[in-house]
């Protein structure tokens, strides 16, 4: 899907030869520390940056050639939940997802409302329909934004750190919901700061460092202590258990004295 993608802001290279592909029904987790270009990668796929080199094929079509209306019927974006200047009901929020399927000069009607209710029902949130969006908890808001993406009827969902502002219970619920959607046939790309989540829920992992791909493959193939050390600069042991592989960070300063310096080096960058 993405081949040799490079992107630069004037003189700074943000993405260098990024290549990967996903197929239907897969969750691809993009891992990497802050500032490695995960967000830029997503913005390229969403058509915000059109002067990239290489190619991004969305359902076989080059992303930069599609206008926002066409692209939005293939790719839906699920942002982190955040405040808005104006408040809407949950139903109206989800209805906005249907925008690209109606005439730009009309308003959503009965059929779009049904689509919106269906989308809410699929993630088990139809009881929220009449609530006001800003009064929901962070987890509920994230669910509603997912429903909005479903109402958009795009098969590819891009999620920017979907669990970053949530408590542990809601993180898990949202990820379970995302897993269900992938099993249902949606392709999900999500960026994450939590390699444990990627291990549990993702089909593929794309690990990035400094704008390039350092590993791409199934969690079992690519996840190891070396990769985690490269990405985050800390020692993490992998513990295989009956419940899947668990990540166990090692206490600081156990046996490697140079770790402190490396940590600094990573943070400076």
């Amino acid at each position, binding site marked *: 899907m993405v081949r040799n993608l490079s992107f630069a802001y004037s003189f700074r290279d943000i993405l260098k030869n990024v290549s990967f592909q996903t197929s239907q029904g897969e969750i691809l987790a993009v891992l990497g520390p802050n500032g490695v270009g995960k967000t830029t990668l997503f913005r390229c796929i969403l058509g915000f940056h059109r002067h990239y080199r290489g190619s991004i094929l969305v359902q076989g079509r080059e992303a930069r050639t599609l206008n926002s209306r066409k692209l939005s019927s293939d790719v839906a974006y699920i942002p982190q939940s955040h405040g808005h200047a104006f*408040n809407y009901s949950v139903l109206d929020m989800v209805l906005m997802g249907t925008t690209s399927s109606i005439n730009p000069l009309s308003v959503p009607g009965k059929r779009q409302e049904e689509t919106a209710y269906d989308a809410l029902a699929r993630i088990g949130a139809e009881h929220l329909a009449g609530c006001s969006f800003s009064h929901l908890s962070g987890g509920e808001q994230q669910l509603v934004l997912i429903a909005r993406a479903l109402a958009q009827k795009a098969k590819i969902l891009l999620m920017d750190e979907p669990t970053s502002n949530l408590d542990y219970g809601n993180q898990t619920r949202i990820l379970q919901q995302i897993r269900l959607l992938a099993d249902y046939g949606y392709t999900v790309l999500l960026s994450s700061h939590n390699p444990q989540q990627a291990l549990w829920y993702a089909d593929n992992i794309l690990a990035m460092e400094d704008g390039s791909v350092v590993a791409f493959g199934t969690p079992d193939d690519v996840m190891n202590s070396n990769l985690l050390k490269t990405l985050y600069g800390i020692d993490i042991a992998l513990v295989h258990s009956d419940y899947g592989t668990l990540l166990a960070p090692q206490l600081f300063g156990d046996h490697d004295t140079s770790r402190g310096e490396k940590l600094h080096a990573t943070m400076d960058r």
Partner: protein
Amino acid sequence: MKDHLAMGKKQLSDIATVTWNRRNHFYTPVVLAMLLLIGAIISLSLGRYGVPAIQVVRILLNRVIPLHKTWTDVMETVVVNIRLPRIVMACLVGCALSATGASYQAVFQNPMASPDILSASAGAAFGAALAILSGFSTFGITILAFLFSLLSVGLVIIVARFAPGLKVMNLILAGIMMGSLLSAGTSYIKLVADPSNQLPAITYWMMGSLAGAKSRDVVFIVIPLAIGLIPLILLRWQVTVLTIGDEEARTMGVNPHLLRTVVILSATLLTAASVSVSGMIGWVGLVIPHISRRIIGSKFQILLPVSMLNGALFLLIVDNVSRNLLQVEIPIGILTAFIGAPFFIYLIIKGEKVA
């Protein structure tokens, strides 16, 4: 996601809210339109030369279906030739300013945006001052105010387009700069104007007034109003989606920059037309969309008509005060600030009610 009891309660009350909202989307505009009609008839009967409301209705109806004449000729002249243009004008100006305010607030994603944020009013003031200095007729003043208003907003859009960075921020900054440049120009014109007649005329124009409104002025504002409103009405749902934020709107298939430019141009046409006939009337464009949002919610397709009706009603009432409170007419721009500012403070203290 929370405990079930709390959820159940929320659910019940929310179902009620949804039905209530849907019914309201129909009834609120109808009720407001009826209030506006009643308000207009009462306004036509008020004034130094009192005309009973029933006669007002008969005089107006007589234009459509001939009735037995129960009124005097003076009554007819007062109602049709003097009061009617002014009252229609008050409604149109209130409607235009509120529509602009609602549109600007939506596309700038900021409830603090007002019609003069992009220097439309400052441009009109400069144009009017220039016309008064040059000794133009009242109609010339209106035309020049209109042109300068459009010109200044056009320049703001062009400046913002070529500047890098956030478009919304660029627009607002360019608007502030243009506004201050133009008011400096206006001040200079005041300095060189003849203090015995031109200077008072400029000052009085800037206070805003609907006095002396004629049928010609009504025609002058109706055409730009219609042209400007059509795109706003057609794009009503796109504008709603844009309020969520440029990037999210874009991922849902809206072109934010194009849409914002179209909306700003249309809305500016409305402000320019109303400012050029009425002078500076502040607060309406900021306060009325706020009140309307509390009544009906933020969806632009319903907020726009409700704001327009509320704006018309508000300015109609304020204009009655302006005409009838004292022997001498009070400039309406002063009154809207006297009424608007305290009301806005009340709204801020009362806090955000969520629709």
